[in-house]
């Protein structure tokens, strides 16, 4: 039986992926051309990640949490700029969620979480047009 900490961290990542899948559906409707193509590509990546996480949770003897029917968006999305901001916001949320996996004792899960953080941080940087010093972490004060 897997540790409850690992399963909880996987469930948190799954929840973030489900939210991202919903959010990209909204964002994609307001995008065109290459931006829309990028949103579709990222939406596909999140679907694949969701399936992988669900399998990892099942293997550990737990039931993957189901996606919600609707997610409250953090702000109104009504045009391309707000859709792009939403995409960056979603990726930030996914990056934060995978940070939880990096703290579990299972070394393979740590690595998996870290690599997923890199993917999400790259997508966030692409949407935002700039990089961050500490993806996934709340602002740090020395």
């Amino acid at each position: 039986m897997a540790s409850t900490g690992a399963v909880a961290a996987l469930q948190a990542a799954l929840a973030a992926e489900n939210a991202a899948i919903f959010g990209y559906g909204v964002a994609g409707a307001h995008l065109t051309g290459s931006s829309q193509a990028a949103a579709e590509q990222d939406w596909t990546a999140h679907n694949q990640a969701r399936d992988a996480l669900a399998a990892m949770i099942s293997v550990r003897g737990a039931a993957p949490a189901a996606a919600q029917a609707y997610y409250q968006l953090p702000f109104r999305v009504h045009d391309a700029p707000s859709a792009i901001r939403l995409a960056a916001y979603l990726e930030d949320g996914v990056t934060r969620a995978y940070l939880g996996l990096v703290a579990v004792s299972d070394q393979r899960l740590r690595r998996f979480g870290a690599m997923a953080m890199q993917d999400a941080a790259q997508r966030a940087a692409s949407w935002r047009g700039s990089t961050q010093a500490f993806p996934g972490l709340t602002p740090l004060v020395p």
Partner: protein
Amino acid sequence: MLLASAAALPLLLGAAGCRSSDVFTGPDPLAGRPPLGHDVLTLQAVIAAEENMIDLYQLAISGDSGTTRARTLRSLLAQHQQHLVQLKARLIVPPGASASPSPSSASPSPRASTVSITRLRAAERASAADLVRRLATAPPALAQLLASIAASDATHATALGG
């Protein structure tokens, strides 16, 4: 009176026919300075690597100031400097031990003209990979910081065209 000063403890133990190691289950505190912990060694190595990265960026910028490329490099350099501040803030070295990281095994510092974007990109990728390798043995909070810095480095590599 049950209290005794630390200085008097060996005398009291000696009078009772005991050595200090008989009453402590951990390393003998009187046997000298304990070795640095693994997390301290990890931090020292990561700090040294971060300092090398900063040197690399500074050399690249000094050979190319004022251009759009230099502005991008300065932005990435600033984030590496933030990494260094956070890493150093977590480094607590026991009194008497050296706080200086051991010399890096990285190649010698190049001249400004030799620091290309390709080289910076490769350094960012290598740094991200090295940090992920270190996750396995790091305490959870440090592992999260290293993973976040690795993610930042990965975005830098992409920003540099990779």
